[in-house]
């Protein structure tokens, strides 16, 4: 009987400290490897540095030069924005089309087709880039395919022509991500009650009207999610062009914001300038996401 009070005390003690103990590893790692580096990056962005430990305070000079007169950064922003916009503009309709085909009542082997389109999502960007390096080569899959369809033709120098850099990255990126968007859209489509379509048909609604009034409202949340996440990830593009072109590519057409951050910080060794690039990316993403949200709200509100 004498153990009873001490056992009770043990239980209360345990309950009281349990959340702290559960959170401890997470909090320690969060503080060390996320919060501390974030503040360091913020501080560094006001310094000019030459490798770790050598820094001179320059105030807002990094940002002023970056936004005001750094032509390479302008190029990186243009390339990255063009990539993100075009990628989403092609990916979302393509994924929706595939999802609608897969949602068809008459379809057999749905799981098999779904996996066929989704499989490429499992391939990492580096592996995809090494693979597409070969696919775009002189005797690669694409040139052979074009030769096969068009008879004999001179091979297209996909990786050396500056104007083909963006299309090349887009092809590889679309191959990687379309299946992922399709899975989400298919799940949303499958959640729609089929009787709604039947009822619409009975009421004499055409396919387009069914799509506009039943399908689109059902997938709207998924669409806004895919566009937001696609934008954020698109602006972080790095590995695909970096490995595909082993650097910025012909005429720097493959230079992206994150690639420029990497080259400045870890090629040139100016961690301060790299930090400024990082925080400018944060600001760009903030503006773009807010603008998207406003436009989205306007579009949805205007329609209802």
């Amino acid at each position: 009987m004498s153990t009873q009070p001490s056992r009770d005390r043990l239980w209360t003690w345990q309950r009281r400290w349990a959340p702290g103990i559960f959170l401890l590893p997470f909090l320690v790692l969060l503080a060390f490897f996320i919060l501390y580096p974030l503040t360091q990056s913020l501080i560094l962005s006001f310094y000019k540095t030459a490798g770790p430990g050598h820094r001179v305070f320059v105030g807002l000079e990094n940002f002023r030069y970056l936004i005001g007169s750094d032509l390479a950064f302008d190029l990186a922003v243009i390339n990255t924005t063009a990539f993100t916009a075009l990628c989403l503009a092609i990916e979302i309709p393509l994924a929706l089309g595939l999802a609608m085909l897969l949602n068809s009542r008459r379809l057999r082997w749905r799981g098999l087709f779904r996996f066929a389109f989704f499989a490429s999502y499992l391939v990492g960007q580096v592996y995809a880039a090494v693979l597409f390096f070969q696919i775009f080569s002189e005797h690669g899959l694409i040139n052979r395919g074009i030769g096969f369809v068009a008879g004999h033709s001179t091979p297209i120098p996909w990786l050396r022509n500056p104007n083909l850099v963006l299309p090349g990255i887009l092809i590889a990126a679309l191959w990687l991500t379309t299946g992922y968007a399709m899975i989400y859209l298919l799940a949303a489509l499958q959640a729609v009650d089929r009787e709604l379509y039947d009822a619409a048909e009975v009421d004499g609604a055409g396919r387009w009207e069914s799509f506009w009034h039943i399908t689109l409202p059902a997938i709207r949340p998924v669409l806004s999610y895919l566009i937001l996440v696609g934008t954020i990830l698109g602006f972080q593009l790095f590995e695909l062009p970096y490995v595909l072109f082993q650097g910025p590519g012909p005429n720097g057409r493959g230079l992206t914001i994150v690639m420029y951050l990497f080259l400045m910080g870890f090629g040139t060794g100016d961690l301060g300038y790299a930090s400024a690039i990082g925080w400018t990316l944060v600001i760009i993403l903030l503006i773009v996401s807010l603008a998207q949200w406003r436009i989205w709200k306007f579009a949805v509100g205007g329609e209802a």
Partner: protein
Amino acid sequence: MKTFALHLLLITLATIFLAPILWLIITACGAGSDDFSQLLHGQPIFRWLLNSIFLASAQTVLVVIFSSMAGFALAKYRFFGKRPLVLVMLVTMLLPPQVLLPGIYELIFHLGWINSYWAIVLPGAVSVFGAFLFRQAMLDVPDELLQCARLDGCGELRLWWEISLPLVRPMVAAFTLLSFLGAWNSFLWPQIVLQDENKFPLTVALNNLSGQSVYQQHPAVLMLATLVGILPVVVLFFALQKDFIGSLKAGAIKG
């Protein structure tokens, strides 16, 4: 007839989507044995594969355990400072992770962890996204169940490990797959902190090989290494497929 056209269209599209993979397999199979002895002479490809397996597994195990513990605490306890913590977590999740790079590089440099696996595994063991995922899933674990277990003499640790975790099994599977996928395919950070070729994961090593003209002229070896880099993820995906697709759907419908 319409059914036939639908299937024909989908088979054509699926073939186009799978063509790069088929091309990869065909090219990789074209590798003769002298290709290997010649091109892989002195290239520790198995070492790189083992490095990738070790790095991705270590990060995955740790991040699943730590995130689920944190998620459990956030879902099932009231404690001081919870709201500010959630707010800070939300803010960090909104930032692109690359903005951390200069700061974390300085930290790793001063810790003397350049060229060390600590620099990869420990930062890889924390995921704010994961903590939120587990918090969301564990909110559905009934409080009454936990209370009953407590009355039966179940300790807090076992409430997490033996009661809550099995109940959110689909989330464990999905997050395991996502974490492994991310760690296995990661390139930028290992490329920055690792210098010794023997420590490279497959991604970093493959990028180096891909840049050398010898290998560009003999793609078979590169393609075989790429295939090796893709296969483990595909195997893991098949093992966890049901739970993974299920959790994607759940997320899609909720979000």
